[in-house]
């Protein structure tokens, strides 16, 4: 009985491991963040699909390029970080404000109850990345190239993702009463943060986006492209009314970066 039980669980674990390996193998063939591609490169994925073809055309009218991100569950955070840092490269004023906010954010998270000891590495790496795109140190082309290299170095790239997850979780904690309204099911905010926000590879929902945008004071526009009617993509700004600095496209399950014309 005992052995049978162990065998069963072992088999479950093996199957899960195999599943993970397969997913990992597929996703590893896609760079963490791709080069800039023309928006109409999306057509190749939807040949003969009238709904998507017309939506891609609509998208092309407003956006010239996109960057793909690896579909590993971290795509929202990675796309957001890349796109916003890219904006900061040519915007010294926003950069200085963001850097200050970044510096102060660690103490704030510690006050909210995060363990300072394990937080440190992520904050340090995050700030190192921010410092490496300082507009006063070099010209925008060199910094953009640097940014692209850093975000395709998994060590740096993943640590930036973790830190944004922690900032998101911190915001949910800070305004728990407000965010509790958005949580479905029987999750408490606490459970939601530990299960759906802080761990790597967990996908993002509206609530993650709203919390991160508010934590950093950054406006994001998401263009939604799915099978829905209308033939056009649908834009949604987070938080509503704020001028967007980051542009993303969402197709069910995945975020990529967009570049407005």
């Amino acid at each position, binding site marked *: *009985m*005992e*052995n049978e*039980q*162990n065998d069963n*669980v072992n088999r*479950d*674990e093996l199957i*899960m491991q195999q599943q*993970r390996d397969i997913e990992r193998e597929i996703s590893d063939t896609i760079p963490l963040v791709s080069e800039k591609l023309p928006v109409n490169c999306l057509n190749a994925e939807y040949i003969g699909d009238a709904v998507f073809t017309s939506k891609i055309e609509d998208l092309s009218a407003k956006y010239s390029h996109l960057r793909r991100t690896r579909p590993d569950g971290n795509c929202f955070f990675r796309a957001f970080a890349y796109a916003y840092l890219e904006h900061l490269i040519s915007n010294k004023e926003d950069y200085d404000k963001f850097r200050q906010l970044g510096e102060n954010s660690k103490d704030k998270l510690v006050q909210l109850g*995060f*363990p300072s*000891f*394990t*937080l440190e*590495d*992520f904050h340090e*790496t995050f700030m190192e990345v921010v410092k490496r795109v300082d507009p006063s140190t070099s010209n925008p082309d060199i910094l953009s190239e640097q940014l692209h290299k850093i975000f395709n170095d*998994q*060590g740096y790239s*993943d*640590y930036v993702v*973790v830190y944004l997850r*922690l900032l998101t979780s911190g915001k949910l904690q800070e305004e728990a009463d407000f965010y509790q309204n958005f949580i479905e099911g*029987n*999750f*408490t905010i606490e*459970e939601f943060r*530990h*299960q*759906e926000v*802080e*761990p*790597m*590879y*967990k996908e993002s929902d509206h609530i993650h986006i709203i919390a991160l945008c508010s934590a950093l004071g950054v406006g994001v526009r998401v263009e939604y492209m799915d099978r829905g009617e209308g033939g056009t993509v649908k834009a949604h700004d987070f938080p509503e009314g704020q001028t967007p600095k980051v542009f993303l496209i969402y197709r069910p399950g995945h975020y990529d970066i967009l570049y407005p014309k």
Partner: protein
Amino acid sequence: MAGSALRRLMAEYKQLTLDPPDGIVAGPVSEDNFFEWEALIAGPEGTCFEGGVFPARLVFPPDYPLSPPKMKFTCEMFHPNIFADGRVCISILHAPGDDPMGYESSAERWSPVQSVEKILLSVVSMLAEPNDESGANVDAAIMWREKREEFNQIAKRLVRKTLGLPS
């Protein structure tokens, strides 16, 4: 990536050495390999495991702390949440979604801000308060629930065994 894992493991080792929690000793098996640790865990006071010193191995993945380590007792164990081969089955060793035992949603999960210390403290709590809903060792779970005296006898024997005393 392994660079940041190594740096983190060295920092955790230092912290555990300077400020060890009660009843826990842990560190790398050898200075050449920080990705494999040995831990000694004292059976919690006032429980049937009191007095025992239980050795275990922790193996860390290259992307630690993004993913959790695996943990296995290397001595004989009889406990609802420990497999017959010594593998420890508690929620903090799993990321959400990666869930062979179907833990409750409120159970503590792995995330990059957890630590070796948090894991070992959870293991001490697990020794003190088995979760008999989780079926890592069904026989142990049933005995814990229905024949506590018998369970305590086995635990006592295991305690003596870890101390090298005749059972």
